[in-house]
C-alpha cells in the first residue's frame, strides 16, 4: 500500500488478534457487504486519500491490507493513507487544507470537529453504515449524519491487583472511597519510594487530565452534552453547578499528593513507564493505553481495571461516560464522492470491519459485529455491572465558539490546578466572568 507519511511516528503496533465475534443476524451482515459493493462504476480508476491521526489504526490498515481488500471490489482504486502522529497536528493540517479546498476524500473526525467542518462534509444519513451503527445518529449535526464512528470507548482505571492487596485496599465504588484508596496507597508505598505515585499521571501534557476534567462534568451530572448546556448559562461555574462540584472534588484530590512529587514535570510516556515499573499503582486512560502498553513490550499480567466512580454514595447512579470516536467522513472536496462513499460502506461491512475492530482495543459500534473485550478490560464490568452509560458529546457550534472566545480548556485547567498557589474559587469566578462576557459578545444571552 502506498503510504504518504506526513509525520513519521515511531509509536505503537496493533495489539493481539482476537476471534471475530458475530452476535447479530446474518441478514444484516449480508446487507452491509452488499452495500459496500453498490454504487459507482467498479472499473473506475482513481486514488482515494484517507487521513487519520491514529497511528495504531494506520498500522492495522497496512497489516490487514485495507487497500487489497477494497480492490477486490474496486480493482483500480488505490488508497492513499495520510498518517499523522497526533491529533492536534492532524487538525492543524486539515484546517489549512480546508481553506485551500484540499481536504482528503475521506477523513476521520472527533464528535466536535464535525460541527466545524460541517459545510465540507457529505451527508451520510442514508448509508447502510449509518443505519447499522449503534451511535452515529446520536452525533447528528443539524439533522444530518456527517461521520460514522468506527469505535466507542470509555475510560478505565488500570491498577496492579497485588499492590492493592499489599496495601489492604479494595476497588472503590464512590468518589470518597477512590480518594481514600489513593491516599492509603500513597501513604503505604510512598513511604518506601519517594518517586512513587498512587495515580500515575504525566500532566506535563495537559491532555492526561481529561478523565477528570473532560468527563467529570458529564459523569457528575449524567448529561453527556453538559458542555452544550453550559452555553445557555451566564455563570455555569457557579457554586452548586455540576462542573463546580466535580472540579472542586478533583482539585481536592489533586491537593492530596497522590500524583507523586511532581506530576507536571513528567510526560504521559514517563508515567506509563513508572506504572509499568510499579512506581504507580493506578493510571486512568482509554483502552488505547492497553494497546500501547502491550506494543511497548510490557506484560499486562497482574493488571485489572475498574471504572472511575464520580458518585458520592452507593445509592446514586454510577454514571460512566462513553463516546463514539474516529468518525469516518466523506468530504465535499472529493473528486470521486461515490467511490468514497462506497469505500465507507466497505469499511463498515463484514469485508473489513470485524477484523479491524478486533485488532484495535476499543469497542465495536456496528450492530452486526459484536466484540469481546480484552480480559484486562473485562474486570471493570464484572466489578461494576450496574453502570449507567452517558453518551458524551465534545460540544456543538456554540460551545466551540465560546471556547474560542474564552480560551477555556478544561484539560489545561486540570494542569493549572496542580500548580502551587492555585485559587479555585477565584478561578471559577474568573471563568464565570469571561463566560458572561463571551455570551454577550456572541449574542447567546
Amino acid at each position, binding site marked *: 500500500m502506498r503510504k504518504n507519511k506526513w509525520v513519521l511516528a515511531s509509536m505503537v503496533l496493533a495489539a493481539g488478534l482476537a476471534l471475530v465475534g458475530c452476535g447479530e443476524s446474518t441478514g444484516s451482515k449480508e446487507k452491509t457487504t452488499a452495500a459496500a459493493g453498490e454504487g459507482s462504476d467498479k472499473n473506475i480508476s482513481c486514488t482515494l486519500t484517507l487521513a487519520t491521526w491514529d497511528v495504531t489504526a494506520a498500522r492495522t490498515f497496512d497489516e490487514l491490507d485495507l487497500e487489497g481488500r477494497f480492490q477486490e471490489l474496486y480493482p483500480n482504486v488505490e488508497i492513499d493513507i495520510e498518517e499523522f502522529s497526533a491529533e*492536534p497536528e492532524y*487538525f*492543524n493540517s486539515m*484546517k*489549512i487544507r*480546508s*481553506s485551500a479546498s484540499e481536504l482528503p476524500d475521506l477523513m476521520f473526525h472527533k464528535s466536535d470537529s464535525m460541527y*466545524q*467542518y460541517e*459545510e*465540507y462534509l457529505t451527508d451520510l444519513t442514508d448509508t447502510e453504515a449509518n443505519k447499522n451503527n449503534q451511535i452515529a445518529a446520536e452525533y447528528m449535526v443539524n439533522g444530518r449524519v456527517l461521520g460514522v464512528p468506527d469505535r466507542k470507548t470509555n475510560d478505565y482505571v488500570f491498577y496492579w491487583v497485588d499492590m492493592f492487596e499489599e496495601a489492604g485496599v479494595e476497588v472503590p465504588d464512590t468518589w470518597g472511597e477512590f480518594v481514600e484508596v489513593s491516599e492509603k496507597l500513597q501513604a503505604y508505598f510512598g513511604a518506601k519510594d519517594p*518517586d512513587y505515585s498512587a495515580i500515575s499521571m504525566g500532566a*506535563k*501534557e*495537559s491532555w492526561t487530565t481529561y478523565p477528570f476534567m473532560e468527563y467529570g462534568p458529564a459523569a457528575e451530572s449524567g448529561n453527556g452534552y453538559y458542555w452544550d448546556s453550559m452555553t445557555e448559562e451566564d455563570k455555569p461555574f457557579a457554586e452548586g453547578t455540576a462542573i463546580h462540584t466535580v472540579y472542586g472534588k478533583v482539585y481536592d484530590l489533586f491537593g492530596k499528593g497522590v500524583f*507523586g*512529587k*511532581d506530576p*507536571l*514535570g*513528567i*510526560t504521559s510516556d*514517563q508515567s506509563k513507564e*513508572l506504572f509499568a515499573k510499579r*512506581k504507580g499503582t493506578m493510571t486512568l486512560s482509554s483502552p488505547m493505553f492497553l494497546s500501547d502498553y502491550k506494543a511497548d513490550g510490557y506484560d499486562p499480567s497482574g493488571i485489572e481495571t475498574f471504572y472511575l466512580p464520580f458518585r458520592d454514595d452507593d445509592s446514586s447512579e454510577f454514571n460512566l461516560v462513553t463516546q463514539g470516536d474516529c468518525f469516518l467522513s466523506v468530504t465535499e472536496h472529493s473528486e470521486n464522492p461515490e467511490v468514497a462513499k462506497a469505500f465507507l460502506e466497505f469499511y463498515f461491512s463484514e469485508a473489513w470491519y470485524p477484523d479491524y475492530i478486533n485488532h484495535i482495543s476499543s469497542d465495536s459500534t456496528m450492530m452486526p459485529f459484536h466484540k469481546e473485550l480484552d480480559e484486562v478490560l473485562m474486570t471493570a464490568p464484572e466489578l461494576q455491572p450496574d453502570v449507567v452509560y452517558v453518551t458524551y458529546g465534545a460540544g456543538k457550534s456554540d460551545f*466551540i*465558539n465560546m*471556547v*474560542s472566545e474564552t*480560551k477555556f*480548556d478544561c484539560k*489545561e485547567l486540570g*494542569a*493549572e490546578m*496542580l*500548580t*502551587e498557589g*492555585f485559587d479555585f474559587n477565584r478561578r471559577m469566578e474568573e471563568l464565570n466572568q469571561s463566560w458572561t462576557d463571551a455570551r454577550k459578545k456572541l449574542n447567546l444571552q
Partner: protein
Amino acid sequence: MNRFNKKRFCFLSLSLIIPVILLCVFVVYPFWELIYMSFLEWDGVASDRTFIGINNYLQLFFKSPDFWQAFKNNLTYLFIHGLMMPVELLLAILLSSKFKGSGLVKAIIFLPFIMNGVGISYSFSYFFSPIEGGFNYILTKMGLEHFIQSWLSDPKIVNYVLSMVSIWRYMGFHVVLFMAGLASVQKDMMEAAIVDGANVWQRLRYIQIPSIRTVIDFMLFDVINGSLQMFDIPYIMTAGGPNGASNTFTIYTIDTAFKFNNFGMASSMAVIMIFMIVCVQLVQKYITGQVRRKESSND
C-alpha cells in the same frame, strides 16, 4: 534601439521583473493577506469571515493577560541572551588565542548549534525530569540535594531553565561569529597597541570591539529576532506550561489559531510580532548610530 541594446534591455527587464513577481507572490501578497486577516473574525475553517475592524488588536492589548505574559517570557530570553553576549565575546577572545586542543574546544562549543533543536529539547526535557532525571542525579551525587527543584514545572523558574537551554544551544554559534569577527581585526594594529603598552582591556575596548561592530550588530539582530520568535525549546520541553507560565509569543499565536480556532486574532498577533521586531531594530539602529557618531566625534 539597436539589436544589442534591445537584448540587453530585455535581459535587464526580465532580471528585474522575475524577482519582483516572486517577491510580490511570496512576500507582499501573503503579508497583505495577513494584515487583512487580522481585521477578521474567522475560525480558520468556515467560509464566512466577518470584518471586525481593530477589535482583535483591542482585545489583545486590553483583554488578554496571557498575551502580555507570553511577551514577558520572550523578554526573559532576550534579557538572558543579552547578558550572555559579553561572556560569549570573552570566550571567543580566549579561543582565538592558539593553545593545544583549541580546535577540539571550538568544535565542542559549536556542536550544539548544529544539533537538531527538537532533539536537544527532548534530551533536556528528560535531563530535567523530576524522576530519574540526569540533572537531579548529578546534584544528588554532588551532595547538593537541597538545590533540587521542579525545574520544568515551577512557574517561578521555568523560563530561566528554558533560557539556559537556549543559551547552551546558541552560544557556540555566537562564539564562532565573534571569532570570525576577531580574526578580521588587523594584526599590525594589535601589535602596535601592544608595543604602545595597551593592556588586554584597552585593546578590547579600543581596537577589537570597534572592529567587530558589524558582527555585534548582526548578533543583536539575531538575538532579538530569535528571542521574540522562540518556539521549539519551550514548545517541546513544557508546551508552554505549567498554566502558560512558559508560553512564548509564537506558542500563544499557534494556540490561538489552531487550539482556539481564532485565525483573525492569531493574524493580528503575527502582525504585532513583525511590528515589534521592526521597532526594536529601529531602536537598536538608532542607538548604535548614536554611539558611532559619538565615537567619531571623540576621534
